[in-house]
């Protein structure tokens, strides 16, 4: 029998799609000009670059002049938050509002700013993994510089009330940034309609290559310089543009936003099958709201086992997945996301994240729902913690 290989970790990264790769190839060896050069080869690179900017802007309802290219989602997050904070600190605004379960690109940026004298409010995410817009409203102060709340969580996939939060921020005159790295291409986004001020995008989560991202910044919000040097990105981020990667990003954004609802529906159906089947295993729980979630992301805690050994054993059975256990993060604590939901450490250690994509087939889902219970049983049979859980159950 052919060895199975099922990639169910698309929230970590994705394969570059054929269409994206084809879009990129000419820009390596034929259209390789520097977009700053004056001759025809340079001019055509510049034209490609600006067309890509327009194409990307169009997919999220922005204008081309509002798109800045970066090297990754983390850079976009860093740049957005630091830029706003640096500028507004001069006006005495030194307060940031974020959530407890942001990506580290946001959390660590906020923590670094705390050391520089900023005050940060970390909003709770409750047991469903969703920030309350009301909490944002109550947290906004005279000196609030920025509200930064992710569009959808990377570990559990819950979608945040971005429209409501954006509305509140606009009313109060506070800048609203959202890390939309997990949401772009999976949910419909229209930044102007939704009143979003800043939004971070990453290429490799939507079948473009690693090393390219973008930041949308609403017209009228000034950005500080990130890299001094050339005049690229309106003088704000020097450095020769990575045209092949940017062309790939444009293509990936277009593909991801074509028939988005229809594709999301198909993926969500597969996702719900994963959820329903895996929850049949005893002592499991779905992490995050069952409905308000990304079409492809599932996160389930499985008691009595530890996440890293679960992943290793799934890998031996041809399934690539991820976990929020401490052992997979290289730190001592399990995922801050799962702890923010109120999970106990021992339950958080046994979490499993499966993230599927358009390329996932029903046969892949069949295989996953067959293998997960087998692997869980095998690990539970050798787990002294599971033994205790069963004993406690029996004594009830």
């Amino acid at each position, binding site marked *: 029998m052919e060895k199975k290989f099922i990639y169910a970790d698309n929230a970590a990264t994705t394969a570059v799609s054929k269409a994206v790769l084809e879009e990129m190839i000419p820009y390596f060896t034929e259209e390789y000009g520097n977009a700053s050069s004056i001759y025809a080869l340079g001019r055509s690179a510049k034209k490609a670059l600006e067309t890509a900017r327009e194409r990307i802007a169009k997919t999220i309802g922005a204008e081309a002049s509002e798109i800045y290219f970066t090297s990754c989602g983390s850079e976009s997050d860093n740049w957005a938050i630091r830029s706003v904070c640096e500028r507004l600190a001069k006006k005495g605004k030194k307060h940031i509002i974020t959530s407890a379960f942001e990506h580290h690109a946001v959390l660590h940026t906020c923590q670094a700013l705390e050391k520089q004298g900023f005050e940060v409010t970390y909003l709770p995410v409750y047991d469903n993994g969703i920030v309350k817009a009301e909490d944002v409203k109550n947290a906004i102060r005279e000196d609030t510089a920025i509200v930064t709340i992710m569009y959808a969580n990377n570990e559990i996939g819950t979608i945040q009330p971005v429209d409501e939060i954006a509305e509140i921020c606009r009313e109060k005159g506070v800048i609203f940034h959202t890390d939309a790295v997990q949401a772009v291409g999976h949910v419909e986004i229209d930044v102007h309609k939704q009143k979003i001020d800043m939004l971070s995008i990453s290429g490799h989560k939507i079948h473009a290559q690693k090393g390219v991202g973008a930041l949308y910044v609403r017209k009228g919000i000034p950005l500080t310089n990130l890299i001094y040097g050339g005049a690229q990105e309106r003088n704000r981020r020097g450095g020769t543009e990575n045209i092949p990667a940017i062309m790939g990003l444009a293509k990936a954004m277009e593909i991801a936003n074509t028939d988005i609802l229809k594709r999301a529906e198909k993926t969500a159906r597969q996702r719900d099958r994963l959820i329903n089947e895996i929850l049949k295993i005893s002592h499991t729980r779905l992490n995050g709201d069952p409905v308000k979630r990304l079409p492809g992301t599932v996160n389930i805690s499985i008691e009595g086992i530890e996440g890293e050994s679960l992943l290793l054993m799934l890998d031996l059975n041809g399934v690539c997945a991820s976990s929020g256990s401490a*052992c997979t993060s290289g730190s001592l604590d399990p995922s801050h996301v799962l702890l923010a939901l109120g999970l106990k*450490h021992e339950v958080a250690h046994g979490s499993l994240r499966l993230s599927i994509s358009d390329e996932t087939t029903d046969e892949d889902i069949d295989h996953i729902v067959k293998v997960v219970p087998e692997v869980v049983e095998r690990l539970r049979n050798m787990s002294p*913690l599971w033994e205790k859980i069963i004993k406690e159950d029996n004594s009830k």
Partner: protein
Amino acid sequence: MLYSDQVLDHFSNPRNVGEIEDADGIGEVGNAKCGDIMKMYIKVSNGIIEDVKFKTFGCGAAVATSSMATEIIKGKPIDDALKLTNKAVVDALGGLPAVKLHCSVLAEQAIKSALSDYYTRQGIDPIPIVGEIGECEHCH
């Protein structure tokens, strides 16, 4: 996490998994909060560890170090088992990533804990022989 082939082998085919019903000593170390628990069972006869079994809740390295530690002491005199160090377990596994070294410490402690229990059951104070079994530094 870069695991050696030996670690992956002992993880995917762990030796000596299970329980010994009439064990002469049982030791348990670690805790659920930290994500590692090892439980060791030993059967002793004439000063020889005749049989040893383990159950482990933990990461790949925790399972592999438990498995390797039981392999090393099985059929050996108690004196040899007392001398088992975490380093010997790590070496036998072809090394461990630095962040996983505490798993090997846990395996050494699990065996010592089972031996302590064995001596206690024999009415012998284990501390002069086995020593104090410290808390895992990683966890505390």
